[in-house]
């Protein structure tokens, strides 16, 4: 259930505040830290988690690194949850249909 990773990344309010700071455009760590009651190292740590979750990406610009919102993490989460239930319910459907066909309890007991 790998989407847990993305939800966990989003569940932290400070991390989401960091993500929100990127909505208006790419920013460097120092710029984000200056706008939030959070230390620079803490912002870096949050950005790392967001990046691992696919929610943020970064690129070097001169001597600094700019971070921006990356939609893939959310798209992945959406697709994952959707596919997750599709697959689980397909297995359920197969089980619920197969056992009725024989009308006796012929289920595997592995």
């Amino acid at each position: 259930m790998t989407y847990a990773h993305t939800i966990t990344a989003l569940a932290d309010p400070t991390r989401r505040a960091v993500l929100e700071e990127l909505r208006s455009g790419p920013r460097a760590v120092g710029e984000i830290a200056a706008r939030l009651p959070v230390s620079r190292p803490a912002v870096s740590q949050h950005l790392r988690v967001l990046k691992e979750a696919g929610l943020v990406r970064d690129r070097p610009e001169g001597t600094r690194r700019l971070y921006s919102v990356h939609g893939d993490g959310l798209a992945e989460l959406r697709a994952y949850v959707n596919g997750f239930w599709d697959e689980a319910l397909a297995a359920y459907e197969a089980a619920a249909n197969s056992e009725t066909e024989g009308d006796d309890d012929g289920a595997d007991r592995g």
Partner: protein
Amino acid sequence: MEQTVGELVMRKTLEVAAPPERAFALFTEGIAEWWPVRTHSVAEERAETAVFEAGVGGRIYERTLDGEEHVWGTVTAWEPAERVVFTWHPGREPDTAQDVEVRFEPSGSGTRVELVHTGWDRLGDRAAAQFEGYDAGWDFVIGERFGTAAGAQA
């Protein structure tokens, strides 16, 4: 017309041949018979089985080959043959739990099963409480980007 995260609903429906009593029992206490535990679990290939305990307060969890248990959620409504509701937080702390409701309705000789996954606003509420003014922006991020497809998944 921004869609807020609290309005997001992921809905799935299917028809099965089993009658409601059996469809309910299979979905819940019979979960080990069908849940794809090797792919749909916290431990994945190390997961051995899934357990769905009957009744309100019952736990839904996976047991690994090493005997570890990872709780996925807890039953909050238990109406055999009709409806079951449970919290859902696999791989996460319970305070980020979402809700899953599964309804079973007679349909011919079989059952129409509807699964509704909600509670995406848990994340939004947490942020709103601690960072005033951020919730509107958040609704945009998750509402527009995440919500468009998830919410339309009717």
